[in-house]
């Protein structure tokens, strides 16, 4: 039988270019899927795609919305990526974000007004502490009782959201709020300044970018960052080298928790301006995908946050323009991750010359 002299083999160490190309391939596949979807429902594919993805970006306000939604994704995903590198699977960022909003919001409502110019730092620190404490629980349970942080961190998402709902229906509800489940508005002095007039993105964006640089330095230039990488790549090698897995878990959980908490408080002290029962359209879950699409690398995560933010914007304009439900965003998110994982597989293959010995068998 005739055999091609080339065959497909697995490349044990795909090049940086191959790893970087996979997200692009996944993005293209997602766009093609969308175009096919529009075509089947009788819409012009190109026009619909540009209507939901490009037109929102044609105004200053729209560009601001893009950056606004990218900011919490950056915070959450940068933190998660640090953990994922070390095999620490924090998937409860949504809950840590909620706890950050609760802790920071509590300070903003009841303590910060008395602190003067220290009010805002106190509020932001409380947000980070709230998220970090919520992430400390799964860390404690994993290091002390060997409990999978995947399940415990996820269960705590539901608990945090119920806690927020309880506060918004009772203790912290705005007495003048016509019984809406929300707190009173934060003082103007506690609302984060905007980066430019005529849009809603706040200086939290600069914070997220600074965090990206800090994360890069942590990974590349610190002993702890290196130790976490080894723990992730080869737990056995890490143990042999005397690197503590427990410490990786603690660092991974606490950093990602604090970052998610910061995302939460900057959302409520930014575009929302108060506490309310729904504060996040699933940023904490979307950040898991962002971390993977960004290749767990700070620069990649920043770019992937912008991409995911565009998906949120696209989902919103699809609701308005095409009457699709809000959940279309999470369908797109799920699809994107499927495509990315598949693209990773195909980018990890290469063509190799068939050896004479192999051909003989």
């Amino acid at each position, binding site marked *: 039988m005739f055999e091609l002299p080339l065959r497909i083999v697995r490349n044990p160490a795909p090049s940086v270019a191959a790893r970087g190309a996979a997200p692009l391939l996944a993005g293209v596949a997602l766009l093609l899927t969308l175009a096919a979807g529009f075509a089947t429902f009788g819409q012009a594919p190109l026009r619909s795609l540009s209507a939901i993805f490009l037109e929102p970006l044609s105004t200053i306000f729209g560009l601001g919305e893009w950056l606004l939604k990218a900011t919490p994704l950056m915070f959450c995903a940068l933190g998660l990526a640090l953990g994922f590198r070390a095999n620490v699977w924090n998937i409860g960022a949504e809950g840590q974000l909620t706890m950050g909003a609760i802790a920071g919001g509590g300070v903003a409502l009841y303590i910060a007004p008395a602190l003067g110019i220290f009010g805002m730092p106190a509020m932001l620190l409380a947000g980070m502490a709230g998220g970090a404490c919520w992430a400390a629980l799964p860390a404690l*349970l994993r290091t002390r*009782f060997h409990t*999978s942080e995947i*399940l415990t961190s996820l269960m*705590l998402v539901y608990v945090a959201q119920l806690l927020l709902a309880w506060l918004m229906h009772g203790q912290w509800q705005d007495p003048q709020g016509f019984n809406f489940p929300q707190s009173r508005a934060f003082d103007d002095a506690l609302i984060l300044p905007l980066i430019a007039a005529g849009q809603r993105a706040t200086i939290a964006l600069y914070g997220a970018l600074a965090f990206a640089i800090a994360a890069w330095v942590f990974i590349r230039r610190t002993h702890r960052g290196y130790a976490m990488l080894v723990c992730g790549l080869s737990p056995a090698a890490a143990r042999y080298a005397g690197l503590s897995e427990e410490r990786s878990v603690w660092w991974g959980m606490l950093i990602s928790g604090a970052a998610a908490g910061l995302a939460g408080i900057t959302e409520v002290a930014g575009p929302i301006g108060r506490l309310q029962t729904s504060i996040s359209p699933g940023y904490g879950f979307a950040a898991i995908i962002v971390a993977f699409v960004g290749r767990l690398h700070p620069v990649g995560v920043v770019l992937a946050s912008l991409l995911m933010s565009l998906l949120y914007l696209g989902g919103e304009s699809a609701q308005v323009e095409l009457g699709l439900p809000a*959940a279309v965003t999470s*369908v797109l998110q799920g699809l994107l*991750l499927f495509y990315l*994982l598949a693209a990773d597989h195909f980018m990890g293959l290469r063509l190799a010359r068939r050896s004479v010995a192999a051909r003989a*068998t």
Partner: protein
Amino acid sequence: MSLDYPIALCTATAVAATPLVFAGLGELVAERAGVLNLGVEGMMLGGALAAFAAAVASNSLLVAFLAAAAAGLVLALVFAFLSLRLGTNQVATGLALTLFGSGLSACLGRGYAALPGKALPALHLPLLSDLPILGPLLFRFDAAVYCAVLLVAAVSWLLFRTQLGLMLRAVGESPHVADELGHPVDALRWGAVAFGGTMAGIGGAYLSTAVTPMWVEGISAGRGWIALALVVFAIWRPWRVLFGAWLFGGMTVLQLHAQALGLAVPGEFLSMLPYLATILVLVLICRDPHLLRLNQPAALGRAFRRERWGS
């Protein structure tokens, strides 16, 4: 004192436990084959919507359960293709499946939210259902509750009393050794994942046709994740899944009846109970590392790729 109320609590517990039994048992089989599928929540939601929609369209509950099984199966096959055929990270793939399934069910289910559902009728067994106390306690459930218990027995028998079960467990412990012995590792894993998806779909169907016969977005409310925790709680043994599901079912029922019993605890805190209980039982099981190491399938979550000689 009338026994009606305690009996009602017990039967409500069994009803609340049934979707967890189906989903947990399916995941148990997949994990016994070494595959960790975190997409249970997504597959349950897919099944719940498929069942509801099929019941509305056909007015037949048999069709509804078949549609749910098919929906769960299709979603599981997507997972199997990615994680088993392409060897992608099982944790990430499962998460993607949950996001995809919950998003898709919310999208497609929009038109069904206001419609009245079709509820699974209780069986009336001659003589048995009319017994005093035992009748209402044991013999007036719908068919799915009995099926769930029979399924536990069937899976237990299959896993521990048949050659197929032995092969499946071998694949979960050491796929390479199983492969060397000539067992079809990939086929067994595909089968186990497909079974898991089918069962998660049926569990979802039970939610939207019996527990609460209606469709709302996110109807499963984390039950898929609780089913995953249940498998750990059960240390990968079928009968313990049943026991654990009753425990969690009881928790949900207590939460609903607490206000009726006059407990002055806010509803939100009662709603936290199943999630907190999940964490608690995970800690109780996992704190003994030997128990975990002895019972957890050794190759759980690891991709299998055959090393080819001469290449």
